[in-house]
């Protein structure tokens, strides 16, 4: 009998975990359950395990158990204090060779994307980027179920399902917010295994002289509860002020579709879509966005979507829960008015 391991890279910086790590533990648990029957028949064990690198991060390993890991391999060392490509990929590559996971999931964050390609190359295995659906599926010619990794291609215009037949692990990167956050269970038990760190300062080949935290704007659009987004239909960059007013009133942030970023009206950090961020807020208001596929793939998992567009046939209405056909410069001021009235009435 063998142990079929479903692995997740637990991403942290400065002792703070990136929530995509928990989302991926949820995915790994789902994938593991899809092979449970098959594994039972062959007498194999199926486990979900996390790999965590950093310095003084044992508390995060403990959290990972609460979010569904059966076991966490912990590499805790000053050389891993902050993220650097070389020591991180060498460590992951070595631990992967040691235990031989079947599946290895990494968050498609700036850190994870830097890391995943290096790990996959060093392990000489397949990696599918930015997956939006994952499944352990039956494939002709394979005794075991394989990871079917589906991702958008050509700017979201088609979906391609990729598989990696022979090499292991089967690696995928997944963007934050594509999958829901699993329940945290503080009674969950599991094991934390401290591993030997072999990476050295000399092998790092790079060091960070300085971290510059941007002073002005910092948007965390991925985890915002409310997003008010604008597109070409705004007509003028001034229109963003109106969106900001609505976002402020709702305690949300402003998003944008690609044309606004391309015209330099607003920074890349605000971009929602395949070439920007994937979001799943509780409320998404799309104003003057036609709804190109590349935008829709980035926001269609939002809980509730209100679209405002003057064209009744705009594709954005296909994903909206409510579509308002009309002029956004009339609709949004009316929204502000009604929200303010509602707040006053309940105050």
């Amino acid at each position, binding site marked *: 009998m063998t142990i079929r391991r479903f692995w997740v890279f637990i991403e942290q910086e400065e002792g703070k975990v990136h929530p995509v790590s928990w989302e991926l533990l949820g995915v790994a648990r789902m994938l593991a359950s899809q092979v449970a029957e098959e594994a039972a028949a062959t007498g194999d064990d199926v486990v979900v395990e996390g790999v965590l690198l950093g310095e003084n991060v044992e508390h995060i390993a403990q959290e990972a158990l609460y979010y569904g890991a059966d076991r966490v391999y912990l590499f805790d060392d000053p050389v891993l204090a902050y993220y650097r490509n070389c020591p991180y990929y060498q460590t992951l590559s070595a631990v992967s060779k040691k235990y031989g996971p079947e599946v290895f999931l990494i968050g498609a964050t700036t850190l994870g*994307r830097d890391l995943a390609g290096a790990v996959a190359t060093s392990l000489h295995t397949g990696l599918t980027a930015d997956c939006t659906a994952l499944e352990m599926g039956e494939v002709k010619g394979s005794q075991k179920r394989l990871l079917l990794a589906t991702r958008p291609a050509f700017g979201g215009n088609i979906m391609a399902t990729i598989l990696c037949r022979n090499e292991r692990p089967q690696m995928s990167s997944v963007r934050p917010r594509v999958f829901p956050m699993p329940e945290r269970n503080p009674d969950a038990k599991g094991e934390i295994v401290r591993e030997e760190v072999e990476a050295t300062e000399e092998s790092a080949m790079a060091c960070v002289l300085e971290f510059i935290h941007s002073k002005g704007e910092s948007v965390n659009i991925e985890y915002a509860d409310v997003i008010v987004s604008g597109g070409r239909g705004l007509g003028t960059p001034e229109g963003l002020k109106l969106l900001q007013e609505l976002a402020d009133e709702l305690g949300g942030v402003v998003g944008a579709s690609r044309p606004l970023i391309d015209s330099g009206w607003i920074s890349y950090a605000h971009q929602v879509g395949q070439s920007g961020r994937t979001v799943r807020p509780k409320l998404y208001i799309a104003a003057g966005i036609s709804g190109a596929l590349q935008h829709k793939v980035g926001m269609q998992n939002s809980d509730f979507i209100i679209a405002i567009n003057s064209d009744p046939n705009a594709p954005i209405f296909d994903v909206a829960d409510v579509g308002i056909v009309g002029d956004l410069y009339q609709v949004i001021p009316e*929204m502000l008015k009604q929200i303010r009235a509602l707040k006053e009435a309940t105050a």
Partner: protein
Amino acid sequence: MFHALVAVKQVPDTTNIRIDSETGNLVREGVPAIMNPYDAHALAEAVRWKQQLGGKVTVLSMGPNSFISTLREAVELGADRGVLLTDRKFAGADTLATSYVLAETIKAIHEQDPIHLIFFGKQAIDGDTAQVGPGVAVRLGLPIVTYAVKIREVNLEEGRAVIERKTERWTEVVETSLPVLLTCEKEIAEIPFAPLPDLIRSLRYDPEMWTMEGPCNFELDQVGVKGSPTIVYKMGTPPLPQPGEQINTRESGIEEAVKFAFDKANKAGIVKLILGGAR
């Protein structure tokens, strides 16, 4: 002498891709092929450093003969030498096989003429994987700086560079040894207008064509489909979502339309959120 290598890819302009509404197929006809925008900005930065330090810029691409136009465009933008890896056996490569062919070629060029900086775009707009740059760095055993936004310093004598990279959380100022591989954001450099001599030179420029036959010795089982652990299992159009309800302000009036939308949101439990914004 300073030598920069820039890897460029020709891509379909994805902003112009359309789906045939009847067949659900990708319409490729009439979609212009362009140099991957991130690569163009990386090239501009390489040329800027050549102008400061002297030396030269080599561009490298892998693809069919039609990619020659992209290498000519690179010469127009200031590249001195172009190498096109072209062979039917390279076709169908995933990111792992692509990184193998590029890395072997960069090794060979480096032996002829030592390279200090290797530039990639942060990702290609057709695949969006951002995997090939890190893969090549691993194969060459070089440091990598992804999401580079600024090169502050290149010191050839001391063999080091200082580069700024932008992550989700902050900007890092990274010191690395040379050679180093960078993957670049657009803000690394503006694309300049081509000077007339480069423009004229580019019209007649023929890149070097490198194949399986040489000058590199590629392992047959590492290239193309054979060297690719991943395969495309199936393709399809994205699933159609269930459209919601629509209200037209011309019929209902503005006030009613907003009321209608908020009423629906309310039923979906969003009203608390609207009030929660009162902080």
